[in-house]
């Protein structure tokens, strides 16, 4: 049992920033941002390339986050200047990022097994300390993100997602908000990619495939479970973060649990989908009750 919980927590931990990023685009900005598949790899690739060049892991991590934010900025400009639909803009950027990531990495896979990373010293000391340092880093990202969401800027982002036209009429610069929102969302995805690469020991050009879908699935699941239970408006931002955490944890809890049932991996995603649908159906029924 402890093994299952630990496996679930360690897997969820590295993807929490990604879940927060998807939460931002999907829930607040009301857009499905497919850039995330590419910016996840971008974060991992930039971090791996710079680390293997001998640059400080901390600086490499910051540069990775900046690159993620730039990818989001590009998506926002495609929507704004190019008048491209948000979904299509994300797909296009993700498409472009494939080549960009390859150019940055120089090869499809960068090994980090013997490269100093943000967590390598802690893991060398003990696994517990290693995971504690990962949790600390993710915790800092969560706190920073929560503080941002609770600020006036966070409120403006939420208003932008709800009704950009109204916000524009009130004199707010919606272009700036769009750029800021998508940059932040992809910065979080890049952070997740960089952390994941350090944990799994490599950055790979194909490691982002399907990450957006997993993230959206987990977010929707978490929100269906948590949001109906929270009635107070001032708890909304906190409950959304909790929903992201619960969703991604539940996803990996069920995935790891199914693996322990020795289910043929061919049917694993079928069963995973059915179980998640069962949760969603129940939660929806609960929410629709008077």
């Amino acid at each position, binding site marked *: 049992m402890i093994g*299952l919980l630990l*496996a679930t927590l360690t897997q969820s931990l590295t993807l929490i920033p990604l879940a927060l990023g998807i939460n931002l685009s999907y829930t607040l900005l009301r857009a499905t941002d497919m850039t995330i598949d590419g910016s996840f790899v971008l974060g991992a690739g930039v971090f791996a390339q710079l680390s293997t060049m001998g640059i400080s892991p901390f600086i490499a991590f910051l540069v990775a986050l900046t690159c993620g934010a730039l990818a989001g900025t590009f998506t926002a400009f495609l929507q704004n200047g190019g008048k491209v639909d948000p979904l299509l803009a994300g797909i296009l950027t993700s498409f472009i990022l494939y080549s960009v990531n390859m150019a940055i990495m120089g090869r499809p896979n960068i090994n980090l*097994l013997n490269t100093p990373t943000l967590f390598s010293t802690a893991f060398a000391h003990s696994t517990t300390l290693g995971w504690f340092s990962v949790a600390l880093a993710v915790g800092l990202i969560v706190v920073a993100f929560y503080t941002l969401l609770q600020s006036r800027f966070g409120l403006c982002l939420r208003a932008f997602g709800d009704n950009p036209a109204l916000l524009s009429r009130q004199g707010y610069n919606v272009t700036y908000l769009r750029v800021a929102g998508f940059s932040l969302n992809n910065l979080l995805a890049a952070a997740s990619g960089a952390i994941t690469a350090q944990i799994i020991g490599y950055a790979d050009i194909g490691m982002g495939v399907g990450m957006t879908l997993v993230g959206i699935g987990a977010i929707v699941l978490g929100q269906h479970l948590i949001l109906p239970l929270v009635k107070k408006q001032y708890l909304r931002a906190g409950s959304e973060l909790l929903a992201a955490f619960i969703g991604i944890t539940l996803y990996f809890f069920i995935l790891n649990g199914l693996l322990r049932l020795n289910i043929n991996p061919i049917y694993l995603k079928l069963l995973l989908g059915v179980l998640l649908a069962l949760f969603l159906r129940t939660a929806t029924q609960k929410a629709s009750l008077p």
Partner: protein
Amino acid sequence: MKRLLAHFSLVTLLLLSACDKPHNTRNPAQKPIQIGIIIPIEHPAMDEITSGFEDTLSATLKQPVKFQVMRAQGDINLQRAMILQLQNKNIDLYAPIATQPTEMTAAMIKDRPIVGLAALLPDSAREHSQLALVDDEITPTQIIQFIHAVYPLKTQFTLVYSNNDKILPQVNEAVAAGKTLGIQINTRMITALPDLYSIAQSLSPQTQGIIVLKDVLVVSGIATLSKTANEKHIALISADDGSVQNGSGFALGVKEYQIGVEGAKVALNILQGTHATDIPVVKMTNLSVFINPEALTAQGQDIQSIQEQAEKQHYAVVNVSDARLGAVK
């Protein structure tokens, strides 16, 4: 809320019921050695390697051995969950197949030996881990030299490859090897399987043959290239037996089953007390020429010259038509 809790409890109980199942503990003296095999994607070559590993280890180990085979279906999250699950089962030795699963296992498992099968990693990656490697790659220079020996008059080839870390340096080496032999090798890269059809349709009319290295993505679409080779009556040359079974004319490579056999020998060494990093990286040296007579006929190629050159260079010749009913062992 009650219904939600009921469903949650049901699923949780179902999942937990599967956890912490006692292993075979009837007789502690007979407790089997547990080996975890991690297969990244479904592929006949992976199954061949697994068979070679399991057969050899079962036959040579004096103790009972239990294999836990994990198939990640190309999903990085699933692969990570599988390694964690093996970790919880107190696996004695890990055997990931291919480079990327070996990297992931080495990053996550520090206290157990790992034998990376068909994996290529720098020596530095073996530090701070218990990692032994079986490198299945033969040099592209050997392949190009063999092609040149078979077709001394052909000077224009197209090499189709995918965006894979192992393949890129090999492509450069193949092009350089071709240059020294007066062969021009044009390269075409695919990023996804659907690209293969477009590339097959846009081959240069001067191309006298298509070369495919040991490249999982391209090999999985070898039928597309085979069709083009048949239509244009040009040779399709690969570097593994599986692709020859699926339409390539011939290949110079190693038997996948043998990679598993070599891996099992390394595993046995480790289980007998040798530290994994003290074992040098195992290179596959016994090369074979795999031929598919039907495909060669369809491509208008002469089987005789291939067999003659194989014998001349002391390579074993394997006719895949004969081996098709069973594993190529």
